[in-house]
């Protein structure tokens, strides 16, 4: 049976980017279906009735949901260019830090987006602390995966795009080359990789989107 791959995503979803990166690394062809989350398609609701979210990867009409679950599915189904480490302990570590990124790091970065003044200072300090913990996982490797991009690089990939957008919006550095030299270098290496660099969503649209997300929180403080 010919392989049929469909990816349901939005233009800006950082989690969909993970799936795109993985599919590109594995050299897989797929069809993209863009969703408008304010008006979800019948197909999306059929393929992901539980969460009704993107991304969803549909492989020969079988849907796989949740981006980290999709990454593992892709890696287990197509064995070329392995993404996850083979060693069970290293695999467990990679999964642990990917989840840390989605939980602690993501929420601390969200707090940077929606605060200002003293609160922004505190939010920034917490985000930087979380970024330091992630930097420690690099040790002295070029990528989290070693010499080539792996699961954890892809799992953290959203930070590369989003952090630079955020830094422009708040007019402040979050990943300082002096304070986070290894992470800074990793962000550059990741962005420069030929598989990654053509995949970013349009920057000006991203800035406008996140600026709009920040506005209501700033207004709330002013009106108090």
């Amino acid at each position, binding site marked *: 049976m010919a392989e049929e791959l469909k990816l349901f995503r939005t233009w800006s979803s950082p989690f969909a980017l993970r799936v795109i990166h993985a599919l590109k690394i594995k050299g897989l062809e797929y069809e993209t279906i863009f969703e408008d989350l304010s008006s979800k398609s019948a197909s999306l609701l059929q393929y992901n009735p539980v969460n009704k979210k993107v991304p969803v990867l549909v492989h020969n009409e079988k849907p796989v949901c949740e981006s980290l679950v999709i990454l593992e599915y892709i890696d287990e*189904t197509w064995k070329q260019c392995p993404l996850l480490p083979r060693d069970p302990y290293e*695999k*467990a570590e990679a*999964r*642990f830090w990917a*989840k840390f990124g989605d939980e602690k790091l993501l929420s601390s970065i969200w707090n940077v987006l929606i605060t200002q003044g003293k609160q922004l200072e505190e939010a920034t300090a917490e985000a930087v602390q979380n970024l330091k913990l992630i930097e420690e996982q690099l040790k002295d490797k070029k990528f989290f995966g070693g010499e080539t991009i792996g699961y954890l690089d892809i799992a953290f990939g959203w930070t590369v795009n989003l952090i630079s957008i955020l830094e422009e919006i708040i007019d402040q550095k979050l990943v300082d080359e002096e304070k986070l030299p290894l992470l800074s270098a990793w962000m550059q290496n990741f962005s420069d990789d030929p598989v990654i660099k053509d995949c970013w969503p349009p920057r000006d649209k991203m800035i406008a989107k996140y600026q709009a997300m920040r506005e209501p929180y700033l207004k709330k403080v002013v009106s108090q």
Partner: protein
Amino acid sequence: MEEEGVVLLEFWSSPYVMRVKIALEEKGIQFLYKEEENIFLGKSPLLLEANPIYKKVPVLIHNGKPICESHNILEYIDQVWKDKFPILPHHPYERARSRFWIDFFDKMIYDIGRRMWASKGEDQEDAKQEFLKSLKLLEEELGDKPYFGGGQFGLLDIALIPFSCRFYTYETFCKFNLEKICPNLMKWVNKCNERESVSKALPNPYKVYDFGLEVKKMLGIE
């Protein structure tokens, strides 16, 4: 860490710990367990060293190396002791489904479980409805299979069954009856409890309920 062999840092009431105990038992793995005295009052130096990020149980320490997060530990155990009682489904698609449902359930129960136990009024009622909606989705996923894994007790069964020891607590606090609402799921609960690994790992639901009341008092929650 000096621990050789397999050590499990645990606390008796944690369903996440029970997941790991069940898996170790099914695989016939010898392990040493080190119980935290009271996870709500303080954490041991070993736990803080083994899991400095989240400071939570379970932590599996295998030949001195700590593995944290229960789902992670299950996958680790299955990969290391792969010749004994496979836990993960064989096919990548079935694995993806199990992982999806564990992720769904874990995100739901973290917030909803707490609100059913600690909230009152409308907040508690909303939590209850969300919980029942989620259980019905799981019951649909189970269908008429004996286990979520089909004929074989596996990853998703191991991940979910420990929470059944909290059902009595939720039912009592929020006033509902799961036998009536999710009869097939409750049949699955009973079937799983026939397994020695499960009956050994799960505490008595009444003990869990009493402890729930005690913790509320300890934390000053009315």
